């Protein structure tokens, strides 16, 4: 049952991400990208990370995709894309295939060390995934959390300045 669900979701994810690359119209690419995000959220649930799945749906499929689709609509790109929309298919394809082969060799050639940590399925079931994330984030990772907030502030200011009229 788990295997069937995994293979189905993985197939949809791979096909959707391929059509992100393939589609001529950027709106179709964006819709395929949403499909890919939702498939990954399903995989996160299968990996016992429901909080990450919720964040994936809300942040990626919600906020970031709304931004991208808003920009596509604003720039009215549908009328521009009559001519060739790709370049360097051969080089890019060879390089991507090479990367796939290389990563497969890495995956097949090694085993992860440090397995058997304290966060098992039973701990996630009893304590709750969100609480575990919150505890880790606000104790061990407090400084990176604050740095992330500063990064978001800088990004907001940068976006506001870049969208001024004189640039």
């Amino acid at each position: 049952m788990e295997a069937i669900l995994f293979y189905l979701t993985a197939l949809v994810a791979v096909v959707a991400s391929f059509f992100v690359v393939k589609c001529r119209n950027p709106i179709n690419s964006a819709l395929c990208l949403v499909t890919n995000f939702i498939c990954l959220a399903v995989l996160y649930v299968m990996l016992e990370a429901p909080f990450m799945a919720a964040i994936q749906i809300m942040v990626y499929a919600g906020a970031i995709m709304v931004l991208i689709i808003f920009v596509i609509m604003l720039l009215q790109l549908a009328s521009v894309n009559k001519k060739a929309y790709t370049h360097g298919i051969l080089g890019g394809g060879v390089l991507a295939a090479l990367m796939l082969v290389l990563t497969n060799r890495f995956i097949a050639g090694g085993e992860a060390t440090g397995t058997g940590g304290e966060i098992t399925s039973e701990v996630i079931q009893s304590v709750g995934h969100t609480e575990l994330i919150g505890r880790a984030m606000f104790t061990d990772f407090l400084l990176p959390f604050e740095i992330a907030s500063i990064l978001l502030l800088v990004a907001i200011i940068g976006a506001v300045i870049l969208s001024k009229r004189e640039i």
Partner: protein
Amino acid sequence: MISVHHYLLLSAILFSIGTLGVLTRKNAIVIFMCIEVMLNSVNLTFIALSKHVGNMDGQIFVFFVMTVAAAEAAVGLALMIAFFKNKESIEVDDFNMLKW
């Protein structure tokens, strides 16, 4: 039974497809979306290995990757709008103002 190798293989495939898109597409917004595919495949790697080794730290890193992706979306799309105002185009072949 699905092991961690399946998830790593899937994320390698997704990363390669994202690389293909970044290298071959001309439209800057589509390139941006392919970068999002690559970031998501890395997130899948993090979460799969986080479950495999029984440690929460990988999922915290996914959280930070998402933060950086959101900041990147805001700034990158603002840059694209500014570029489109100047050049009336969004294709990467027209990004040649620093070339001489």
